């Protein structure tokens, strides 16, 4: 049955649920086809994004299916060993249950405490190898040279959950969305992939009657979208923050900046120092837009990894679409 899982993943058009949205079957194929004596599988349960708890929800409710998904990978990829890479909170919450379900499968639990950057797949690999928790340069991609320089399949908790569903023939284009906000009930919902923001919020009764905007795709690096963009689908992680215009946008920016400044790896200048200066300005509630734009450009164009490159997105979109528009 596992032999044609690649074909099934391809047919199901499953894309990684860690945020990058890379076609899952391609990763699997690349690791599978490599002609080397040892391969590794990592289930990424670091879920480091600010406020995001959808993987936690999946582990609370569907832990067995996640393990089944990892087992499919173990059986598909010869001579492979697996790791589940969990943040501190999830490790203490799920350790016992995971061990019960794993039994004698070749799956090792890893506890990490590396903040936001800890969830980046090459950081996870460095950390498991005992190295400094900072990202690696690509290429080579981890599916070519990953853990201990061997091809490594890194998928998110949700991805493995759906691998299990696809393998059982029970997948029909679903994904998990987390919705939150001061004015909404929120929660984690399993809905169809590709739904628009408006549909997601209306379907779950989280659509405010008064005017509002959202942050979509991530709790810190997700983009700010206003009403006229609500008919677009979500890019990135399955996350929507509902924000009313009464809320103080600076408070939100301060949370982002603090989270990112604390959670990055501090390796490269624009991310490390740029984020610190953003936080400094936001705390003073005094934005020098010209200076900010120079920092954003440096981060976007010259950061070492995708995290640094993504930092300007929430700030720039909030400033342009909300703060400047509303005076």
């Amino acid at each position, binding site marked *: 049955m596992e032999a044609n899982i690649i074909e099934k993943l391809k047919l199901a058009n499953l894309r990684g649920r860690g945020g990058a949205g890379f076609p899952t079957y391609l990763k699997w194929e690349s690791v599978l086809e490599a002609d080397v004596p040892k391969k590794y599988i990592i289930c990424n349960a670091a879920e480091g994004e600010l406020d995001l708890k959808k993987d936690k929800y999946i582990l609370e409710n569907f832990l067995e299916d996640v393990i089944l998904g990892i087992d499919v990978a173990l059986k598909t990829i010869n001579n492979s060993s697996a790791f589940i890479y969990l943040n501190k909170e999830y490790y203490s919450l799920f350790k016992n249950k995971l061990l019960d379900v794993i039994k004698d499968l070749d799956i090792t639990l890893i506890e990490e405490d590396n903040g936001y950057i800890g969830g980046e797949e090459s950081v996870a690999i460095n950390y498991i190898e005992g190295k400094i928790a900072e990202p690696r340069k690509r290429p080579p991609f981890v599916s070519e040279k990953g853990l201990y320089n061997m091809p490594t399949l890194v998928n998110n908790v949700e991805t493995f959950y759906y691998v299990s569903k696809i393998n059982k023939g029970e997948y029909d284009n679903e994904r998990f969305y987390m919705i939150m906000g001061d004015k909404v009930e929120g929660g984690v919902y399993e809905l169809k992939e590709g739904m628009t923001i408006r549909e997601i919020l209306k379907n779950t009764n989280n659509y405010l009657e008064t005017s509002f905007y959202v942050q979509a795709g991530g709790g810190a690096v997700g983009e700010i979208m206003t009403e006229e963009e609500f008919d677009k689908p979500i890019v990135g992680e399955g996350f929507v923050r509902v924000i009313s215009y009464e809320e103080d946008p600076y408070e939100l920016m301060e949370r982002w900046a603090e989270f990112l400044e604390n959670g990055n790896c501090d390796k*490269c200048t624009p991310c*490390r120092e740029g984020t610190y200066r953003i936080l400094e300005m936001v705390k003073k509630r005094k934005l020098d837009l010209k200076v900010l734009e120079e920092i954003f450009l440096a981060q976007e164009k*010259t950061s070492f990894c995708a995290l640094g490159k993504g930092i300007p997105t929430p700030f720039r979109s909030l400033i342009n679409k909300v703060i400047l528009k509303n005076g």
Partner: protein
Amino acid sequence: MVNIEIDGKKIIADENKNILEIAKENNIDIPSLCYHSDVYPKEACRLCLIEISGRSGLFTACSIYPEEGMVVITSSDEILRTRKTNLKLMFAQHIEKCNQCIWNNKCKMLNYARQWKLHINEWEDRKKNYPKYSFGGVINYDSSKCINCSNCVEICKNQGVGFLEIKKQGSFHEVVPSQDKNKDCVYCGQCVVHCTAGSFSSVDPSSKIKEEIKSGKYVVFQFAPSIRTSIGEDFDMDQGSIVIEKMIAGIKKIGAKKVFDVSIGADLVTIEEANELIERLHKKDKLPMFTSCCPAWVKFIEFYKPEFIPNLTTVKSPQIVLGGIIKTYFAEKEKLDPKDIVVVSVMPCTSKKYEADRQELKIDGLNCVDYVLTTHELARMFIKNNIDLNTIEGEEKDDLFGNASGAGIIFGSSGGVAEAATRTACYKLLNKKLEKIDFKEFRGHEGIKKASVKIGEIEIRIAVVNGLLNAKKILEDHLNEFDYVEVMSCPGGCVGGGGQPVPTDKEIRKKRAESLYQIDRNEKIRIADENPVIQNIYKEFLISKEIVNKIAYTNFFKKEKEN
């Protein structure tokens, strides 16, 4: 080799070199800070930005390798803008303490800032309250200057030491000394010559030396073999320039009464060390014998591998031997009270400062060496005293300890001690003039060099090692293959020492070493034993075993963590 183009210039490029290096070789200047050819590219500073045709985004030249047909652009509006921002951001963390900085007028950060007309004080320095650390009283680490390139951590790891670590401090990952009781600094100073931002420095005793001179003490300077081919770099001379007479004149101008050459001490060490080696070979005892003239290596053994203490030669190092002779033999000759003599060594080295203070090296209650200046510190002393080595009139060394042999001079390069000792061993064992003086198998900058020398009936298997990680490999895996092992902690030996001018890299170390071998080639006397100065010292002063022991031999002790 592949064909590439950088800024319109067609280049045939070596695939093993990165674009930054290739550009430099072709006189295309790509601004860069944190790249150092001794460590893998950290890609941290984000200044060496380039564009590559057909690929979107910006890349760092230090981490891109050429491919056939690659077209590189090193300057565009976006590149210039982001370079400026990144440099400004680095200035905003780094505290400028420029006049005390090892990079002083060579500072790339400051030069770029001037060139790009940057306002560097826009922000309050993030690190203004960051701590200062001192290691063994010889190396200072001012973390408020650090720009987080982590080259120091890398080079410390490459030395097999790993004392410098990256640890999270508050919300930032910063470089800190290890708290691990099994890790300690060996004072090699490689962090000093590899730090991008001048955060690491040697503890400079020059103001104390000035006071000694002022107070009328009899101040004697002695300079190490490798100084003469590196100090010129701090005066914009070509790398590897040989500067002896002008340096002596400069030292005299500062107020030194006498200036001697530590290579004389090296000649004495060579003779005694060869004696000890021959004795151990006869007895087949405590082999392989390790050299002990590098104090960082000695500290490494005493702290990390104390079980090998018996393998160290018990001969003292050249600066200590000559310092001891100055305070005894020389004092007597000149009718001076040894207490009134102040011996200042000029060394390529930071760990020599630590060595000078070792209590067990005292003779009659006095330190043999009172102060150690690094090459760079002496250069700075010259500059402060308006002494320009380019223009000053040269002077000769002082008579009593006139010229060293060529063997004493090559001590400054990795392999030099082994070559000098081999010359002497041959001389002693064969009891005749040598046909072969050059032992080129010991030369060059590879981490581990091996050679077997047959002298009459005796075969001596020798390893020459530079870099402590290489030494560790010998200790752990190849010990039984050798009878004699020369270890220098720093890459390339003393020419790459932690007290040398910056920048220091492989090419520069090579040039400094080549010049030392050139001096050796041109010396009439190239074997320590044939040096009349040395012969005279043995005839007049080192006449009994007791005196030789007192002046030239010592012991080593297991060390606990000091930092």
